[in-house]
């Protein structure tokens, strides 16, 4: 459990480093994707339970079922969030294609120099 939380935290730091320090547009987009995925890992870890049963109502007693099963809410949240993350990545890639047509480079530092 604790190693999953640590991995998630490490991925977040890596992603922020990538977004802040790398001048390439594509690498910035990869950084954004890694950040969202780190949060997804955190959410899944919050809902995780060792030896849990699938959250499909099979027991008669609701309370014992709730104690045994895995929490389904974080998984629903992650599915929603993955869709949002994909749409943002697609839009960002689209904008960077147009930026490449205008500037002939994907490097933000060179873009600033070209703009003068």
């Amino acid at each position, binding site marked *: 459990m604790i190693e999953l939380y640590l991995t998630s935290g490490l991925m*977040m730091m890596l992603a*922020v480093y990538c*977004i802040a320090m790398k001048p390439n*547009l594509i690498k*910035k987009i990869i950084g*954004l994707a890694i*950040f*969202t995925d780190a*949060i997804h890992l*955190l*959410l899944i870890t*919050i809902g995780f339970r060792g030896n849990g049963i699938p959250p499909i109502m099979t027991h008669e007693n609701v309370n014992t079922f709730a104690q045994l099963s895995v929490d389904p*809410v*974080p998984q629903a*949240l992650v599915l*929603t*969030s993955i869709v*949002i993350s994909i*749409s*943002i990545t697609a*839009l*960002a890639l689209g*904008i*960077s294609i*147009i*930026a490449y047509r*205008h*500037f002939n480079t994907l490097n933000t530092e060179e*873009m600033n120099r070209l*703009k003068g």
Partner: protein
Amino acid sequence: MITIAISVLFLAAFLVLVLKKDMIAISAIVFSFFFLIFIYLAPETMVFAFSGWNPPFGIVWVLDGLGLFMALLITGIMSLTAIYSVKYIKKRKHRYYTLLCLLTIGLLGISLTGDIFNMYVFFELMSVSSYALVAFLLNKESTEAAFKYLVVGSLSSSFLLLGIAMLYGLAGTLNMADLATKVYGGPAFLVVLGLILGGLSLKSAIVPFHFWLPDVHPAAPSPVSALLSSVIVGSGVYMMIRVIFTVFGIVSVFWMLILLGLVTMILGGLMALIQKDAKRLIAYSTVSQIGYIFVAIGIGTSLGVTAGLFHLLNNILLKSLLFMSFGIVLWHTGTRDMNRLGGIGKQMPWVAFCFGVGALGTAGVPPLNGFASKWLIYMATWQVSPVITAIAIIVSAITMAYYIKVFSCIFMGHSNIKIVNKTPKMMLIPVIIITIMCIVIGIFPQIGIMFVEPATNALLNQSQYINAVLGGSVI
């Protein structure tokens, strides 16, 4: 019932691309405005549970005073902008209207939802469509600005998602009323509050996170700038106060709001003084006015919150007025540089008058609406500390100074630009409607306060909100 408005907007967003008729999108947005007026006249808080799952399990939409206040403002400004854009946008019009419909859905969802993850989903819908609208012209400047906005915007909404994930881990629920009963002021919850507010403050342009606003505004088309500066920033403010007052109910962050508000107010005003680009100047002025709103809300008294929400209302009206009327100037002349403009006041007196009303209203000159809300802010801050009032008055004078500069640079002096075309009526009518509203609220401030009062009551009565959602009267 509220799902009707949303489904009509979704349908319109799809149909306008297929059938290529702009009227579909415009009439859908105007329809949602009148539909919300109809709901607004209903007497009590309404709670809608989706798919028959009662709160706290399912997603609920809560139509309380504050949510309806924002929703009415949003759909109203959206309708006027949609009408204004008919002549302004020339290329790829249908895609523009699709994005405008999606933006309306996002903003409506943010203001009416009672579920914090649902709020995040609509926040992202709003963000994605606003990134696309900023990039809409697809030239060098707008592409660069949109990419910058996209990277910082999605980083900040990732922080919001992180905060919501940790909140779910701590409290085990996502319903805002249920969260309000389970949240207490422990250090873990303060970390969560910090993450959520950090994520939201980028959209509401508080000072350390205001840098995107002046870069994005000049690059976007003028109606989009009007939306960015009024309703998108306004919904950021709405989400912050909703999370602070309704979900957390923590009083100890109020001094932080006052401090951030003061810094935002002063820095925005000073930066606006040195701008040459008219749109950048108005954008910095937005930053400065957001500071006023946060100072007033940070006071935390009934008077302070009323003043803050009233100023939010006025700021939304005035900023859309300023950007739309400057948009007409930009449409005719094609330049935003104040040194190259000049002397066009005689050639289009109506536009000059409307822009003047917007400028004087933002500066807080007596017969206009900005004065009424600023007067309330001075009264509310005077009860806490006269120093804050003094700073607010000084920043108001700075506001006056830079608006006199921008007005005289654009409209007065000798003319070296000839206006050839006639201004289209579709562009002039929305501007005149907002001008009339500004003057009417200025002369009769009771009308504005009457509209703000239910929102203040909804914001300050946390227990009423919880009872309405968890009490059982769910439709």
